[in-house]
């Protein structure tokens, strides 16, 4: 479904991603692992075209989308949940969801406000409140729900467990597994190896923008030297 090949991305003069290549199959949940500053967020942004890669291709359903504007990428069915959440604090929860709304797609799960409120009951209670006084967990739920309103085929989740109470993280894991059951393809970036192991089928480890490992979690289990070298556990 998604193929990233030979990606090079820069922030100004800083070379962040270095010839990064990987693929994501339909219905797969892939975890992007690595330390702070390894290039996880830049990978997400380069797929979303919020950062335009300098070279390399991002192929989504057979089309190279490198150089597209972010809204076109979103309209093609890639949903992006940023690490810093970026909810619209001046808008109510319902209005936040409205911003994300797009037409249903034939080959992707269809979400409605009611269905999302059922998954995230906390949001339902406060639907007419503004996003100002929300906890980190509630903000994360709102960001995910807002992106799902676009009925994406592929969901990019950037560090969803960061800064969230452990109880909520557990709930979040269940939610992501539910997305998988609904047929959503997910790329999730994580520092929390345990959390990633629960939700994802496959792990990709990057360090300084270079891919160091690509395989199943059981393979990763067998090579503790990789884990120790590239992850801060």
């Amino acid at each position, binding site marked *: 479904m998604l193929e990233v090949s030979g990606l090079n991305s820069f922030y100004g003069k800083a070379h962040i991603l270095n010839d990064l290549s990987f693929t994501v199959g339909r219905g797969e949940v892939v975890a992007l692992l690595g330390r702070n500053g390894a290039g996880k967020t830049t990978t997400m942004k380069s797929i979303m075209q*919020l950062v335009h890669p300098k070279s390399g291709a991002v192929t989504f359903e057979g089309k190279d989308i490198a150089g597209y*504007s*972010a*809204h076109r990428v*979103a309209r093609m069915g890639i949903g992006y949940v940023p690490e810093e959440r*970026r909810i619209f*604090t001046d808008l109510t929860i319902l209005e936040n969801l409205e911003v994300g709304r*797009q037409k249903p797609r034939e080959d992707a799960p269809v979400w409605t406000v009611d269905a999302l409120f059922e998954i995230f009951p906390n949001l339902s209670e406060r639907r007419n409140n503004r996003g100002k006084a929300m906890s980190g967990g509630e903000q994360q739920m709102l960001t995910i729900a807002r992106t799902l309103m676009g009925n994406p085929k592929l969901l990019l989740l950037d560090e969803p467990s960061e800064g969230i109470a452990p109880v909520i993280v557990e709930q979040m894991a269940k939610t992501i597994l539910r997305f998988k059951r609904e047929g959503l393809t997910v790329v999730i970036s994580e520092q929390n190896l345990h959390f990633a192991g629960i939700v994802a089928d496959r792990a990709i480890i990057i360090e300084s923008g270079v891919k160091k490992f690509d395989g199943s979690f059981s393979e990763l289990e067998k090579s503790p030297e990789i884990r120790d070298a590239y992850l801060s556990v």
Partner: protein
Amino acid sequence: MGLFAAQLITGLANAAALFLVASGLSLIFGVTRIVNFAHGSLYMLGAYFGVTLMQMLPGGFGFWGSVLLSGLIVGLIGVVIEICVLRPVYRAPELFQLVATFGVILVIQDLTLMIWGADDQIGPRAPGLKSVVRILGEPIPQYDLALIAITPFILLALWWLITKTRIGILVRAATQDRTMVGALGVNQSWLFTGVFFLGSALAGLGGAIQLPKGGADLLMDLNIISAVFVVVVIGGMGSIPGAFVASVLISVLNVFGVAYLPQSTLVLMYVVMAVVLLIRPYGLLGREEKGGEHGQVGEPDRPIRPAGLVGRSLVAALMVALALIPVFGSNFTQVLLTDIIIFCLFAASLQFMLSTGGLVSFGHAAYFGGGAYAAALLVTHAGTPMELAFLFAPFAAGLLAIIFGWFCIRLSGVYFAMLTLAFSQLVWSAAFQWYDVTGGDDGLVNIWPSEWLSGTTTYYYFTLIVGVGGIILLRHLTHTPLGYALRAGRDSDRQAEATGINVKLVQWTGFAVAGALAGLAGGLFVFSKGSIFPNELEIAKSFDALIVVFLGGVKTLSGGVVGAAFMDGVRDWLTRLEYWRLILGLLIIAVVIIAPNGIVGSLRKGAERLGFYRGEFSE
């Protein structure tokens, strides 16, 4: 009582057009973060189109139809401006966008002159609303009452659009975080264009709807723009209800000001604005601007270094050439060069504040004119000798900058710019209206230099020494700890604070230095001309300085000086042409889009490409 009521009604009626224009500006700023200086021009176009359409379409239906149609046409013109001028510069720093809209002002000025001619157009009266009614014995035009009745509906319609529709939700979301709105699948370009259409249409409506009260003339663009900015800043940038409240406040205040304080009508508005900003720095209903949003975009700045050997030799050669001018050049050349050097010093002082300090001032003329007036007042009223009066110019301007700066540096970004504009207007209106002291429009005359400095050539040398000395001082300051601290505060005030720099104090100092040197330029100016008039304090003077700094190159040290020299050099030739504003406007827009590094930056890039000049980062 009757008179009071009548004035209140007039004020409320005047608020209608002001609110329309201000809400449009506010809306555009909220979403695109562009302060559209050309908004007054759109208002003017609305009035002109209204006059023409009303002549073609008869009757009540024709009148109101023309008003709506004018709004529609101006909205479409706004779309053209957005697509052609602003789209290419959305990612550029704030100042570039501002300068681009200055260019649009000039272009629209001359196009209007071409199409409708220089004569004022009398606004037709609204059919069915031509007479007056008596309220408490005072005659009130029916049209005023109609305007008062219409305005709340416009407010309501806008409020509904913004709060209840999907478009409104997207607009509010984009006001807060446009990148995220894009990442959620909304085409920002069209959202921006749509908002620009709506904002421009509102300005056009405002222009057409005020026709029965004011008609149409070529000055109305700049006349309304300062009032509109005051309204938007008082109400809070981006807030429609804020724009409404502030429009009413300012309009009513103006009417009562004319009646009870005729000497200070012009000042009143700015005093209110300054007071509001002191109590609520982001306007009555505005929200705090997030830091970092208006920071530098794009490539990191090239580090500024002291001039190398080649640079110094070139400057030295230029100095020798300038010193030899009186030997070869005519009297006229010396006068022209005196003007140019003065303007260069003025521009360099703004450049110091703007590019080294990151403080975008819209009111730098206050210190230039302030210094000039200070010296002239001493000479006129106290008979002070020229030497002392001349020294007093930078001192007084510096003092003025210290006072105004104390208020201004507490704000940042657009609010900072607006407050500097307000203070400069305050100085201007004092000079303009305080007739007994400043001579008002007649200015102050007979301010000549002492015997030993009189004569074109002598004064030319005096200007050359003082002006170049001032410019070198400013350059030198950039490479002192003050300059480093200013640059640190400009690039990241938080990090600068965290390293122990008192950013506000440093910026205040920078503000004062820039003010004092602008005052020095003003002192040179007043004794070279022998007179001073309020127009040296006008907004246009401040804009001139901004434009030359920009033309020369914001991110360079010499940009202001080069830009000023270029501008003053070509102005003499350019203003002989009939439509020079059009040419200048198009030139400015072209520079913004094609050569955003300005003259110096572009020359340097070109030289780098050819291998003559090695940049720090060249690959």
